[in-house]
């Protein structure tokens, strides 16, 4: 087989400049940037959606490049649905589901034995289960997963809790997590989303089996659930998927909690075992279905995207990075959160990076940007959008997410068109509206305490 590509030993050639560098670009004269025409749209394969009688939305995108199929099952059991004193219950519930046995084999083991992947990711409003397998294996895997969601094995809860507790304890030491948690505590106070995705060690340790099963039974509901399939979908497979999706219990889950408006500056400081200071500067931001969203994506591109919306997600196959620099935009949360992470590695240290960022943001709020710079930002934002869809799983995520927008699946094409229409005035408007009350989370080396 081809030798596996080694992970890069140094930072890869980034598509967009990192935050401090990008802010520098924004501050500099823009003469060097040529006028760039708005990029033509790229093409997604056609897709369709239908709503089943029990309320489940089913999205299908047939692609016959290979015999593989990817499924994203969105269950409205996300981080914002957790009570603040049960932070971590979504993670323990999802871990329990993967450990639940069907025909003598856990769902995770069943997937592994067929060569498939099965994982979960915690989003603000969903627990999202991902399957990638050959089309012929999909019905049995999906059926086993839905059965496990319906009847989680309570005997697995203690093992699941122990695993999540370990992650929660490790997260406390992670500087990126610490900085992110500070911003979230200010933006989403009193909800489960105010805390790290794996919860707080003290709340996870106290979770009972009854709390975990109740969380699942309350939120595993057809209303709000989406089954999004991309790949080699044949008629019999689709029929089987419909039948399985129709078995989800009808009804709607409790609505997720919403954050409160932040009306003043905040600064929170913590100490961790790090070599250099870490800073997260957070702002409340538009959600993905807001009219301000396209302009905010351009702002993100201009300030230097550090990673996409999944970059800091927690899941069975995703670990929080310990090194993240650049802008991170969580637009699924209510309200959205726009956070720029900086460290002290650059010239002038972290203070210089903060100053550059604040100056760049001030410029966005006050000045009319030159056309060439707006063009540049739009082009970067369009590129970031299309580059976020490289696998069948990405396709299934994008479509499943779009299915819940007011426009439905048309959203996937409407959004790039809207990005291409963003003007300098739009950028100034969203900067003035959102980039005002900053929350500064500072992580200092423990030795400097």
């Amino acid at each position, binding site marked *: *087989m*081809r*030798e*596996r*590509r*080694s*992970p*890069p*030993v*140094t930072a*890869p*050639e*980034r*598509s*967009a*400049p990192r935050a401090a560098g990008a802010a520098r670009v924004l501050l500099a004269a823009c003469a060097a940037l040529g006028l*760039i025409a708005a*990029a*033509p*749209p*790229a*093409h*997604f*394969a056609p897709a369709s959606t239908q709503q089943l009688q029990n309320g489940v939305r089913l999205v299908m995108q047939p*692609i*016959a*490049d*290979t*015999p*593989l199929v990817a499924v994203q099952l969105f269950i409205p059991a996300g981080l914002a649905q957790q009570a603040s004193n049960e932070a971590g219950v979504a993670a323990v519930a999802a871990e329990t589901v993967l450990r639940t046995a069907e025909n003598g084999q856990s769902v995770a083991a069943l997937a*592994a*034995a*067929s*060569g*498939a*992947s099965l994982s979960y990711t915690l989003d603000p409003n969903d627990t999202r289960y991902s399957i*990638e*397998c*050959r089309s012929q*294996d999909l019905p049995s895997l999906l059926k086993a997963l839905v059965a496990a969601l319906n009847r989680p094995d309570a005997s697995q809860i203690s093992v699941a809790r122990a695993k999540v507790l370990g992650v929660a304890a490790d997260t406390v030491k992670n500087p990126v997590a610490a900085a992110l948690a500070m911003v979230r505590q200010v933006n989403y106070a009193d909800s489960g989303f105010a805390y790290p995705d794996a919860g707080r060690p003290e709340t996870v340790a106290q979770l009972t089996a009854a709390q975990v099963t109740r969380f699942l039974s309350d939120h595993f509901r057809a209303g709000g659930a989406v089954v999004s399939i*991309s*790949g*080699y979908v044949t008629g019999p497979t689709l029929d089987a998927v419909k039948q399985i999706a129709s078995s989800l219990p009808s009804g709607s889950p409790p609505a997720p909690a919403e954050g409160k408006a932040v009306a003043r500056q905040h600064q929170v400081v913590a100490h961790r075992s790090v070599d250099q200071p870490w800073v997260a500067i957070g702002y409340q931001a538009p959600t993905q279905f807001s009219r301000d969203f396209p302009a905010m994506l351009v702002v993100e*591109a201009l300030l230097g995207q550090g990673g996409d919306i999944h970059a800091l997600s927690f899941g069975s196959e995703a670990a929080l990075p310990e090194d993240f620099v650049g802008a991170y935009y969580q637009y699924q949360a209510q309200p959205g959160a726009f956070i720029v992470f900086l460290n002290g590695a650059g010239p002038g240290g972290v203070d210089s990076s903060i100053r550059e960022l604040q100056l760049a943001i001030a410029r966005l709020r006050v000045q009319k940007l030159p056309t060439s710079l707006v063009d*540049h930002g739009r*082009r*970067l934002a*369009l*590129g*970031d959008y*299309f*580059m976020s*869809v*490289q*696998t*069948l799983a*990405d*396709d299934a995520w994008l479509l499943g997410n779009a299915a819940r927008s007011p426009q439905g699946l048309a959203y996937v094409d409407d959004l790039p068109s809207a990005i291409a229409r963003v003007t300098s005035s739009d950028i100034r408007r969203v900067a003035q509206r959102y980039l005002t009350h900053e929350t500064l989370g500072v992580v200092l080396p423990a030795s400097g305490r």
Partner: protein
Amino acid sequence: MHRSACGAVAALFFAAVFVAAPDDARAPAAAAVLAPGGSTLADGLTVQVRQLRSSPTAAIEVWLGVPSDGYGESKPGIARLAALAVAYEAFNGKSLRDVTRDDSGQLTITVYPASSEIAIVVPSYDATSVERALLDRVFHPSIDAKAFAAARQRLAAQQAAYLGATDLVLRDAVFSALFASGAYHVSPYGAAGSLNEISLDDLRAFLTTGYVPGNGIFVVAGDVNPAAVARIAASRAPLPAAVTPAAPAVLSAKPGATIIGNAETDRSGVALAWAGPPISDERAATAMDFLSDYLLRPAYGVVSMAIAAKNPGINVSGEFVTLKDPGVFYVTASGSNVDTGTMVALLRGAMTRALPGPMSESQFARAIQAYRTHALRDNSDSAQAIADNFGWYFIHGAPAYSPSATDAALSGDYFAQVSSLTPQYVAEVARRYLSSAPATAAVTPRAPAAADVPRASPTRGGS
């Protein structure tokens, strides 16, 4: 870093550099059967296009069959330096990095012992401009002092970081113990000292020799128009140039053992490696792929799982690397504060127990089914993975055998070979290639002593 090779055969092999006549400009690819969607231009450049609907992106790659330590006198790291310099070279005022960055794209440079890959993924609407930019810079290179300096700086940073990547260091060390000389004997990263041995003139000479169309493949996979790709490839083509074959891989007469004291990491580890079948023996190579999946796939392989169950702190990985001749099956195990001798015994014990003889028919049926899915997921999950495979299998002389050359019906050479496997054949291949004493390598975070050198005996009465 202290590094000593113990037990490796000291004989050096210097192959005479053979400059082919212009008629032989297509030598590496001429005899090979191309995959569907492949063609060879008049200048010798092979072009491979695969149209995909699964992503609005395109992976645009050039692969060149160049030795990582250069032609003639060994200059470890020169291929990586050359590829970096091509990425930093300003062409009409813009480097490949700039072009990629403007489009939110991803530029990846990967240098293997026998090949270099420059890969760019961009939104598909930018594919044509990036195709032109890549071909211009690769086949009409003009490296100036500024690009050379930038590449040196980047490589120096990569070399420093490389030392902290224990699994990479282990892989290179065990290849070094398995091969007596040539590109597989040295790390593609080179070393800090070797960087000073490479001048700008050396780099230009390397590019003139290696970056020629008959030595490479231009691969585009994604939401693209194949006819447009072919037109661009033809329009940017350089003149035909002679292909200079690299020195062939030469195995050590007796597999060696090496140990590296690496103060840049707190992890220790061991690696074992066996020479396997050449790519021309497609059925045996496929059997080795299946074996590496069945034994070593993380969170699945029986060896990986057996070791993880008893030693959760040890990370096991490995694969069969399909090469022109021979292929290499290797496994690494690493962790914190783990005794290297114990690790070798653990690995050998787990391998022996996992391969007692032919698998039962039912066990084999389940494993081969899982393998098909793994092979698809690993090799066709994205435009870049598909393009990478076309590049790799072309470089090693069997483009039609690429796992990317398939479709929803699993057509193509590779999956036909998977279907031909039987438990008896797989067991025979395991006996033939994995029962001898492997080459071994170890990394420790401290200065090694002679007693640390790991040695492994044959599994079942091998040579």
